[in-house]
C-alpha cells in the first residue's frame, strides 16, 4: 500500500461511518467514501486491528443504548435551545425589521414583492 492510500483510507473511511448503533438501513446509494484520491482501496487491516476497545459499553447493546440516550438528549437540548432562542423579545423586532429591509432591497433591484398590510407601507 502506498502512502497515499494509507493516508486517505485512515482519514476518509473511519469506523464511525459504519457504526453499529445506527445502521444505514434505508440506503439506496452506497456510502460515499470517495472524497479524495484513493477511493477504491479497502481499509487496511492493520488499522482495524489496532483499534482499542471502547472505554465503556463494550457490550454492543449497552453501547447502542448510550448512543440512543445521547441522541435523545441532543434533540431535546436542540429543541429547548431553539424555543429559547426564538422566544427572545428581540426576535420579533428583528423579523419585522428584516422584512422591511429585504423588501426595500428587493425594491432597489426592481424585484416585485407582494405588499402585506401587516407590515405597513
Amino acid at each position: 500500500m502506498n502512502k497515499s492510500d494509507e493516508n486517505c483510507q485512515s482519514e476518509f473511511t473511519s469506523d464511525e461511518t459504519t457504526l453499529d448503533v445506527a445502521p444505514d438501513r434505508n440506503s439506496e446509494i452506497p456510502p460515499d467514501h470517495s472524497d479524495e484520491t484513493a477511493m477504491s482501496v479497502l481499509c487496511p487491516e492493520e488499522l482495524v486491528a489496532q483499534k482499542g476497545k471502547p472505554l465503556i459499553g463494550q457490550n454492543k447493546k449497552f453501547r447502542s443504548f448510550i448512543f440512543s440516550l445521547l441522541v435523545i438528549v441532543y434533540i431535546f437540548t436542540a429543541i429547548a435551545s431553539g424555543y429559547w432562542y426564538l422566544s427572545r423579545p428581540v426576535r420579533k423586532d428583528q423579523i419585522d425589521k428584516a422584512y422591511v429591509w429585504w423588501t426595500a432591497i428587493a425594491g432597489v433591484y426592481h424585484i416585485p414583492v407582494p405588499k402585506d398590510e401587516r407590515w405597513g407601507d
Partner: protein
Amino acid sequence: MDQSAPYFPPLITAWQEMTWFCLNFAIFLAWWIFFARRYQSEFTLSERILAAFVTTIGQILLVIFITGWLHKLGWWETVVPNAVITLMVIILGQVSKEGNTFGHELDLLIIRIWRLLRSSSALWIIGILALFSAGWYLYLGQLLPPACWDAWGYHLTWAALAHQERFLGPFDFNNPYVNFFPKNTDILFLWSIIGAGTDRWANIVQGIFGLAGVLAVYRLARIAGARPRDAVASALLLLSVPVLIHMQWKAMVDLAIMGSDVLAIAFLARKRLTIASAVLAGVAAGFMVGSKGSAVYNYFALLLFLIYRCLPLGMNGFRHVKGHKFGTGLGVIIAFLMVSFAYGSYFYLRNWVLTGNPTGMYHVEFAGITFFEGTEETSVHFSRDLLSATLYDALNSGSEWPIVLDGFYDPQMDFSQGNRIGGWGAVWTVLLLPAIPFALIWALIRKKWRVIAIIAVCLLPYFLFKYNHTWLRYHLVVLAAGTVAFGYILSLLGRTRVRRLLLAAAGTLMAFTLFISGAQISITPVEISNARNHPYQLNNRYVSFDSWNDPVFARSLNLVKPAGTTLAVAGSPPAEKDLAFWNQYFTNRVVWIGWEDDGESWYRKIVDSGAGFVYVPKDSEPDIFALFSPLWFSLIFTSDNGSIYEIIYEKLKPDEE
C-alpha cells in the same frame, strides 16, 4: 451621496487593476497545479486546494515583506516579482511527470461536487443558501466603502500610509494602533490598494479566508470521521453565522485569523504528518499570529496540538501509521516552528527592537510576573455603549459565564461593526453548540482521540483568552468545533430519520438566520441603492458614508484631498477615523504635524511639509492659533468635528507685516 463631490482620477489604470486581479488568480492556479503535479500522492484534493491558498498568501506576503524592507512598495515592484515567482512555480509543477494535470483536478472537483449533491437533497438547500450568503456579502463588500471603525481607525489607515511611504512602518503618525499592531492581514489590504488603487477589494479579503475556512473545516470534519456529504453540510453552515458572514466584507482581521487557524489545524491534524504539511501549517499559523496579538492564544493551542500529534504515546489517536517515527515528529515540529516564526514574528521583533516591547504598547504580565512594561492593559474596557444594560450589570457583578452564553444567544438587535456581542445565530445555538458535548462524550466512549483533539484545539483559545469572551468575532474558531462535532454526529446517525430531521432543521435555521441577518448590518437600502447607482469610480465613498452625522464636514474634508496634494494633520478626526484623510484612490499625501511649542514653528513645519491644507481638532491649540493667524491660515470650514484651513504661503509673520 453628494453628486457634486470632486472626482479624483485613479493612479492605477484599468489595465493595471485587471492585470493585478488576474495575477491573484494566476498565483493560486499556479500553486494548485504545482501541488496537483508534485503532491498528488501526498495531499487529497481539498488539501491541494487549501495548500494552494496558503502558499498564495505566503508568496504575496514574502514579496511585500522584501519590497517593504527595501522601501520599494509599488505596483511594478510587487507585481513583477509575483509574476516571476508564479511562472517559476508553473515550470516547477510542469517538470514533474507524475500527478494530475489541472484538467484532471477540475474534473475531479466537478465530479466530487456533483456526487455530493446527488447524495443528499438537503445539501442542495444548504448549498444554495451558503452560496447566496457568500455571494451577497462579497458583493456588498466590493460595492460599499469600509463599514467598520477598525478599518477606518487603523487597518486601512496603515495600508494607506504604507502605500504612501512605500514601506511597512512604523510611520511618523501619532496612532499606536497604526504603528504597533501586527499587520499580516493588513498587508493583504495593502496589496489590494497597491494593485487595484482602491480599497474596494480590501473589503472582501476576509471573505476569501471565510471560504477557505469552510473548506478547512470540511477537512477537519472528514478527519474526525464524518462522511463527505455530512462534512460539507456542516461546514457550509458556517456561512449562516451572522458575525462570520458580516466579517466577510469588513477590512478587519478576525475572520482571516479564524480561516488561517483552521487551515493550520487541518494540516496538522492529517493522518500523515510530513515536513510539507508542517510547512503549510507553519505559513498559516505564522500568518495568523502576525495578524493580531490575541492570536498568540490560538498559536499556543496549535503548539500543544502539534506536540500531542508528535508524541509517541498511546493516547495519540494518529499513531498507527507506518514510518511515523520520532525523528519525523521532531522534524515536523522544527519545520513548523521555523516557518511560523518567519511569517509571524516580523512586526513583534520590529516593535521589540524599537520600543523594547514586542507589542509596542501593551503591558505584558503573566502569573504576576511582568515581562514587558507598557502603557495599555490588554483587557477590553467594557462600557454601556457596547453592552446592553443588563449585560453590563452582570459583568460588573463578576459573573462571566451568563454573559458568554447571552452573547451566544444573540440578544441584541444588531451588531454594528461586529464589535458588539451579537451572537452566532440560530444554527449555532440550536445545533452546533449542543453537538460539542455529544461528540466529546461519544468520542471519549469510543476512544476517538482525534475527534477530541480537534474539538479541543478549536475550543482552547476561547478559554485562554478570557478578556474578550463577549466579543464573539475574537473567537470565530470555536465555530469550527461546533461544525466538526455536528458533521461527526450526522455521520454517526447514518441515513436515519433523525439525521434527515437535523439536516432539515439546519436548512431552516440557516434560512432564518440569513433572513434576520440582513437587517443587522447597519447599512440601509438607500445607501446600497446610492452605491449601486453611482459606479464605483464616481462614488466618492468617504463622503457618502461618513458616520459623523455631519455631511458638510465630510464634504469639506473631501475637498482638500485632490491627487498629488498634501494634507497636514494636527490631530485625529472624531472617532480616530484617520482613513478619511485620504481620497478614495489614495493619491493624496497625508503628513502628521501635531503641534509644536509655538505657533510659528508649527506653521514653518507645515510649510516645510509642502501641505496645502491642515486639519485641526476643534478648539485645540492649533485651531485657536490658526484662527487668529489669518495671514498664514484661511479657514475653509469649521464644525464640532474639527476645522480645515488652507495654508497661505509666502506671507510675512503678522508682526513683521
